[in-house]
């Protein structure tokens, strides 16, 4: 890991005030992100997974310097970028772009596709005015839109096309890293795969890095080189996609992987992988946050916060006191394997060949 990381975050924490007394003094805080470190290398995709309220979106915005952290630092190519002036931050933000979940609310309905994609060119003064239209056409083509569509307004596009506009707009700023916050969650399956392929193509062509925030383990499996799992503001496990998803160590990751439905016909038997609700993030349980729902919890888990380190056998780092003594996780249920005839048929369908 000697190559300079595109983004390196160290010990990031952020809490938000959720209750104030009569005089406006904060009385209750929620620790959205609690001492999190991560890094994303060049041309790498780090997926951030976890359930709602785990702090993954807050973390993504801190990495982009959209929210200042309470503690910790963010470095870009080894240069510290957090705690800088607004003017310096503008440069940082150009290099780190954000793609949101909902392409319906991310686009100004009164601007045409061409204006939306051209705006970053103007704001960052990247392309001389005379060349902007040509650059917009180029960007639209790169994301699979036709250049003549530049005069249309967002409502004239489908959901998938709108997400393409959002991506073209992000690309316009010539970023090095794109934080994708649930980029395909609002899209239908058949459109979702088109957008995921586009993101992979762009990564290979432009050498982009992605911080890919998602709750969908199927999508994460498709996209991620490495995976970080968050629970109530902390990373509980981080490692390569194969390590984390195929042989999860932390009991929460195991529950997450086992809970995800799989496209394999047949009713599930037995009780659900994890009981109970997510505890309130305002008053998270002491020690390991997961101990209230963990089948392996013991006394130490209620008292001490486990460190996020690799086990004796190496592999993914897991924040669990029993990372070395837990029984091996049950292998995840595989999706149904298509029969040879079905596989041939699928290939014919997706190749677009007409038998």
């Amino acid at each position, binding site marked *: 890991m000697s190559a300079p990381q595109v983004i390196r975050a160290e010990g990031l924490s952020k809490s938000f005030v959720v209750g104030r007394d009569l005089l406006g003094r904060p009385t209750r805080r929620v620790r959205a992100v609690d001492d999190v470190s991560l890094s994303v290398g060049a041309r790498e995709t780090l997926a951030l997974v976890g359930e709602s309220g785990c702090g993954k979106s807050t973390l993504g915005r801190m990495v982009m310097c959209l929210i200042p952290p309470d503690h910790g630092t963010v470095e870009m190519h080894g240069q510290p970028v957090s705690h800088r002036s607004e003017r310096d931050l503008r440069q940082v933000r150009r290099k780190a772009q954000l793609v949101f979940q909902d392409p319906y609310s991310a686009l100004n309905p009164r601007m045409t596709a061409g204006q939306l994609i051209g705006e970053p060119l103007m704001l960052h003064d990247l392309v001389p005015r005379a060349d902007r239209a040509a650059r917009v056409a180029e960007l639209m083509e790169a994301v699979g839109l036709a250049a003549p569509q530049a005069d249309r307004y967002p409502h004239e596009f489908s959901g998938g096309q709108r997400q393409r506009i959002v991506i073209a707009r992000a690309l316009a700023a010539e970023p090095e890293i794109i934080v994708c916050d649930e980029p395909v969650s609002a899209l239908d399956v058949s459109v979702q795969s088109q957008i995921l*392929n586009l993101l992979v193509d762009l990564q290979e062509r432009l050498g982009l890095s992605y911080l890919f925030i998602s709750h969908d383990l199927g999508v994460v499996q498709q996209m991620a080189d490495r995976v970080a799992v968050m629970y109530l503001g902390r990373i509980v496990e981080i490692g390569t996609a194969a390590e984390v998803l195929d042989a999860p160590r932390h009991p929460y990751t195991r529950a997450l992987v086992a809970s995800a439905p799989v496209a394999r016909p047949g009713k599930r038997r037995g009780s659900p992988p994890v009981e109970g609700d997510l505890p309130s993030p305002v008053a998270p349980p002491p020690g390991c946050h997961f101990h209230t729902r963990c089948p392996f919890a013991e006394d130490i888990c209620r008292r001490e916060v486990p460190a996020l380190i690799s086990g004796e056998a190496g592999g993914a780092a897991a924040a669990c006191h029993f990372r070395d003594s837990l029984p091996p996780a049950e292998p995840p249920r595989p999706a149904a394997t298509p029969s040879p005839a079905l596989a041939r048929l699928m290939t014919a369908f997706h190749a677009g060949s007409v038998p």
Partner: protein
Amino acid sequence: MMPRAAVLPPPDFLPEPDMAEPLIEVQNLAVDFLSAEGPLRAVDDVSLSVERGRTLGIVGESGSGKSVTSLALMGLLPRRSARVSGSVRLDGRELLDLPETALRDLRGDVISMIFQEPMTSLNPAYRVGDQIAEAVERHRGGNAAAAWTRAVEMLRRVGVPSPELRARDYPHRLSGGMRQRVMIAMALACDPDLLIADEPTTALDVTIQAQILHLMGELQREAGTGIILVSHDLSVIAETCDEVAVMYAGQVVERAPVAAIFEAPEHPYTLGLLGALPARRARAGGARQRLPVIPGTVPQLHEMPRGCRFQGRCPFRIARCAEPPPMEPVGPGRESRCWRTPLEALAA
């Protein structure tokens, strides 16, 4: 009042599907929305049936007509702007001819529905216990105290911890998963014969989704409820349903037992959907594989092609696809709306 079997045998002991009288039988259901440019057909020629104790999944993408279908079954579409035709028979009784007052007696009693977002379905100004008790009093009569007791009992049954206390809470005090449990408690409080669940877990996290789906399965086994589960998620469908109806652009394009859908789909759209699923697939030498895609997008209601509605995106299309294909049997207990069946012959 119709007699109702309180305890039915578990589904394994039910008669074979072709012997059983379907609980609900839908034939040639069509829904037209009246618009300034004339009627728009949102649902066209939909035929379905569900037996007691079994689950039918309706899967489709946004705009496929799956939610409109379920609202039409409940008689919940506005009568002014939506015209529903065809036949919906519940236990042999035609629902589409019933006046609104009679439908109101059925809804929440014989048929219940769970929606995607529990917060918009619960009244924020009433305690959840009162909301469940209201349904019980409306359909079962009896006094308020008995209805409250039933509400608490239902909350206990759906796994809400300390139900006596939670029944006194307002909806905003509960988490998303707890609210959906309340919705299920309300829907099942009168032991309905048929439960229509429209994306019941889409707004929930996966660990909670697993809990809710498990709960629905358990309650179904206890009471023999027939379930129609509407979902866009093929994985959820695979793990919960007995039969599946795949909808595309307002029509059911394929109907089959769940295993058959996944093992040998008989409609090109189903085939394309299965291929496009992001899944835990093996990676060849670390290189990231492209996901197979279905090119193009769903046609809009006002520009529906005359023939097969999938023809614009289908690599298997032939000249004949310009004519509308009928829904035809393609094997035991299954039908498909495609001129090119059996598809297997295409891959030979």
